[in-house]
């Protein structure tokens, strides 16, 4: 993910009261280089996987977790 974006982190703009789903949509729109990785990816909020309906608040650490490949 970092290699695709060219950075360890990116900035997205979302409305107040945005959900995880909103953040994912914004990532796809505002960072086209990440578009290919989004279908299989999930968001973690403060180091926990979050459902699409979960709200994202100021100060939250949001991580885009692409298809993992451990093991």
């Amino acid at each position, binding site marked *: 993910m970092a290699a695709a974006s060219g950075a360890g982190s990116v900035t997205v703009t979302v409305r107040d009261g945005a959900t995880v789903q909103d953040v994912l949509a914004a990532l796809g729109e505002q960072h086209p280089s990440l578009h290919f990785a989004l279908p299989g990816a999930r968001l*973690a909020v403060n*180091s926990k*996987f979050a459902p699409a309906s979960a709200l994202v608040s100021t100060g939250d650490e949001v*991580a885009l977790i*692409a298809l*993992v*490949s*451990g*093991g």
Partner: protein
Amino acid sequence: MTVHTSILDGPLTVAAISRALGDQWVQRAGLVWDQVGAQVRFDGVVRRMEGVAAPDKTIDARGDRASAQHERPLAALFYETYEPMATRQFQALAERICERHCLKRITAIHSRGLVKVGETSFVLIVDAAHRREALLAVGEFIDALKCDVPIWKQPRWE
């Protein structure tokens, strides 16, 4: 139910595993050893050839577009982790599998960083009363590891 998990830098050598687990693991501390009828161990080893998606796409028999793959020789894999989530998810997964299959003990260790071809990057050891639950637990753990634990491998080609 005893659970041991670790994410260690570099390959999982005998010495590295021994340091991580300590003498108490070998001595089966906390384990009612005479209730263990089956121990299953899985070692994930970096193999030399790794599949690479070809840039062109071909149409498969169903009429869907699919990437053609070929293999290239690796020198190593580099394992990247997202912490502290990787450690937490790894531990939570081990606890869940241990409880679900009524294991006596589960031990899971994964590498972080560079692991060369032929070296071990993942070790899973389960102790159970019977082979059935031990074998099921190993398969289920690995399937879930590849979904729920934020660890990624990046190829380092020859």
